[in-house]
């Protein structure tokens, strides 16, 4: 009833408006490599796999009559694909994930045994769209896809099979041709992001500063003691330690599931050095960077294992049953084979520690009070230590980590450096106001080397 081929120009124009589209402008070529139509009356679901300028996308198009007055598209104009002619008359096409009725059809295609009443679209991510059904299950639809196993599906399945409790176990997956298209999991009800918890803790700490008693000005009196984050009501260290323990357990489970591989620390050092070439001349002392990387190249760096790859406070959720980890997709912009390549588990640790720094810097920036710098640093220091304590206990020395604590420190410093270099590039390109955060981290890392 629908001429899918006729929709190609509209889809081409529509793609650049989607967050998960990797290009900036309309693709030069667009080929439909798979199509499926569900329903013979409106609303109709059209699932397409399209190749646009060598990238492949899952496009889910809903089609309804032009006379339809459903208001789910209100405020989501970017979701409208355009007009389309059908045997039942003029219709309009749009991104089907916004359509609560078609969302149930999408679920049925993935998991026919799951019955749901209501659907809501969660905010869209860089590479996928997630729909929550009845506040009970969540369907992640991969929009930017690649041939081969999606690491998200692969790792989530492997961890759940190993009895690792801190991932939501897969309930169903959808695989078409050679592509993973969807993953259905229980919705973690009552969960909040680690990022939100960290900022809550920091705002509490800074609020304590607001109501600290004012010292009586008298030169004979000792200066007031600085505030200690350990004394603050919103102390995060207990959470950070449990988060570290969960992370350690995750790495042990990943190593058990995918094996322990040889760590080529020389290659890692070279790769990081290549990235650091992109730094600007005044940023940091290059010789200090080189010293950090030389040390990495020289040591026993422990094992290389499958890792999360994009680990930060936004990827972990606090639930009533403790911390959970999400999003094993890795960096969606990188090729799948690169994302599946084993690395040091300390890469994830470095990612989380960088995230603690970001949280403290962002919370301080929110208040625009640079006097809070010491307090923010004290918070970061306390929670770094707590996280590492929890992590080391769970990961165990000599299992996946180097046996020598000094080697652990050397690998960690190198990967914190890598992450900060990446962040600096990103911030300069997209959020120049935030570039000071990774720059401060780089300087802190390299100053220790002088």
């Amino acid at each position, binding site marked *: 009833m629908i001429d899918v081929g006729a929709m190609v120009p509209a889809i081409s124009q529509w793609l650049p408006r989607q967050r998960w589209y990797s290009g900036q402008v309309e693709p030069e070529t667009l080929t439909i490599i798979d199509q499926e139509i569900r329903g013979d009356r409106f609303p109709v679901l059209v699932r397409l796999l399209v190749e646009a300028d060598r990238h492949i996308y899952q496009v889910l198009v809903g089609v309804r009559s032009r006379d339809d007055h459903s208001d789910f598209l209100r405020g989501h104009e970017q979701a409208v694909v355009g007009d389309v002619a059908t045997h039942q008359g003029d219709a309009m096409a749009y991104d089907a994930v916004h359509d*609560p009725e078609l969302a149930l059809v999408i679920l049925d295609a993935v998991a026919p045994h799951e019955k749901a*009443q*209501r659907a*809501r679209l969660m905010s869209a991510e860089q590479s996928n769209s997630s729909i*929550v059904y*009845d*506040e009970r299950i969540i369907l992640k639809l991969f929009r930017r896809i690649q041939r081969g196993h999606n690491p998200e599906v692969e790792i989530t399945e492997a961890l759940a099979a190993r009895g690792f409790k801190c991932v939501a176990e897969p309930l169903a997956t959808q695989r078409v041709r050679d592509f993973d298209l969807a993953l259905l999991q229980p919705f973690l*009800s*009552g*969960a*909040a*992001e680690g990022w*939100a*918890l960290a900022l*809550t*803790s920091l*705002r*509490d700490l800074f*609020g304590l500063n607001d109501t600290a008693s004012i010292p009586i000005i008298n030169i004979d009196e000792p200066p007031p003691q600085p505030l200690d984050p350990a*004394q603050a*009501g*919103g*102390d995060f*260290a*207990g959470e950070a*330690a*449990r988060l570290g323990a969960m992370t350690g357990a995750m790495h042990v489970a990943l190593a058990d599931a995918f094996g322990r591989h040889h760590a080529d620390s020389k290659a890692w050092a070279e790769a990081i050095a290549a990235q650091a070439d992109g730094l600007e001349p005044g940023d940091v002392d290059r010789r200090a960077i080189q010293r950090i990387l030389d040390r990495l190249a020289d040591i026993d760096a422990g094992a290389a294992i499958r890792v999360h790859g994009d680990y930060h406070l936004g990827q972990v959720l*606090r639930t*009533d*049953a403790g911390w959970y980890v999400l999003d094993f997709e890795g960096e969606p912009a990188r090729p799948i084979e690169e994302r599946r390549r084993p690395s040091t588990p300390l890469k994830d640790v470095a990612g989380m520690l960088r995230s603690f720094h970001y949280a403290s810097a962002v919370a301080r920036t929110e208040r625009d009070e640079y006097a809070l710098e010491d307090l923010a640093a004290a918070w970061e220091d306390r929670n770094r230590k707590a996280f590492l304590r929890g992590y080391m206990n769970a990961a165990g020395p000599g299992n996946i980590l180097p046996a020598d604590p000094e080697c652990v420190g050397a690998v960690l410093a190198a990967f914190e450096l890598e992450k900060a270099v990446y962040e600096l590039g990103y911030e300069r390109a997209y959020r120049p106001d935030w570039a000071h955060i990774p720059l401060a981290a780089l300087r802190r890392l390299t100053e220790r080397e002088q």
Partner: protein
Amino acid sequence: MTDAIGGSWFQRAVFYEVLVRGFFDSNNDGTGDIRGITERLDHIQWLGADCLWLLPFYQSPLRDGGYDISDFFSILPEYGDLADVVTLIEECHRRDLRIIADLVMNHTSDQHAWFQESRQDRTNPKADWYVWSDDDTRYPDARIIFIDTERSNWSWDPVREQFYWHRFFSHQPDLNYDNPEVQQAMLDVVRFWLDLGLDGFRLDAVPYLYERDGTNGENLPETHDFLKQMRKEIDASHPGTVMLAEANQWPADVVDYYGEGDECHMCFHFPLMPRMFMAVRREQRYPITEILAQTPEIPDSCQWGIFLRNHDELTLEMVTDDERDYMYNEYAKDPRMKRNIGIGRRLAPLVDNNRAVAELLHALLFSLPGSPVLYYGDEIGMGDNIYLGDRDGVRTPMQWTPDRNAGFSKADFAQLYLPPLMDPVYGYQAVNVEAMQRDAGSFLHWMQRVLQVRRQHGDVLGFGSLEILSAENPSVLAFLRQLGDRIMLCVNNLSRFAQPVELQLARLSGKMPVELFGRVPFPLIGELPYFLTLGGHGFYWFELVDAPSVAQQ
């Protein structure tokens, strides 16, 4: 004794815990008494409590705050006599108030006539009423509860020349429940007080009634059997009576004391209390939601007892290893929450005398599942005197007026059992019932009002299910209480800063939230997330009603 929806009175009751010694002195001897409580029932009734809980008033040498009873059938003379208790019970019932009292089942004072007889020799009629032994090595797995003062659960009696068993202080020998005469004697005690009109008991230290080799002597099946037998007897003779157990254990273990609804009616929920404080300290909901997630369902005819302040507190050795780690990390280490400090503080000083926090904590207490238990004086935000030591710091005289001795007694100041608070923040000149009654904006008036609203919704709050709602903002704790088609939505901001929250309420689309304090209608719930903003430490109680079909003018 059941009402229209099939529940019992205690399932929706608000309890008010009274220290006889500290409430009101009717004869001006410096010590509060039973008649003093009778004279001040107006206050409790006006406040909106449903049931008084009296701390021990029995004859006692008072070496453990009256929990060392030397005669179950008479009153400590300083407090009055049996006739005073009967008058108090009658006066309560005339006002539709109920009244329960502490009862210690596990042990007596060593001054009790039963023990004095039992210790004489090994053959007297009460020789087996206590637990005697020639050596002090039996039951090695039973932990010592008061490790600060006791080195063993056995103590040597030089008269009988044997050791006797005691789980608490050495001056509190454990009764021997293996002896049917002891069981009967204690059931006689229970019947005596119920015949006088008491509506039930808070049963002190119930897990320890029996001892068995190779066990830790806690929660034994024999203990449950005895409690079930007691329940059966009082159900037959005194229906409507409540047995409220103090079993200082983890909720998953405490639920055993409900049996199949055929054992205790109520048990205290111990871990919830510190976690409510911790949630406000941390400005996030997980301390509360975690413990609720670990709280098992209880029989329909039962109820939890929940509280903010109380003279009991969770002991860390009762919890699982994981929980102990959690409590240690999050609670015991916190300078303000250390056990021995926590137990010696009243609510107001614990929250820095912050009224918004006190209101929020009470709003939680009154809306979470369970019957709330208030501690005398907390309704006016009384403080404490940590220099008095032990638990006396929270047992200072009730502050009635700004007059001499806080209006508690006309005795000479030096004669008072404890000095009233006189500091500039919490002292009776600043904090007292009379002044707060005159001030319509006082915390006392707020308490009276919130209890009024709770009473109006007593069915839903007493019997309704609990469902915690998802909220991306960790500082917001939102939940639904539902009983049939009656639904309440409670939203709490645990942070001192204003917070937004989006609630996924699409399945209740078409309902209108009506705020319960002012009956203010809020915008209809639709398909989109329901957006609310809360002021610092703010909360909402809504009733969800069907939207009126026509806009009312």
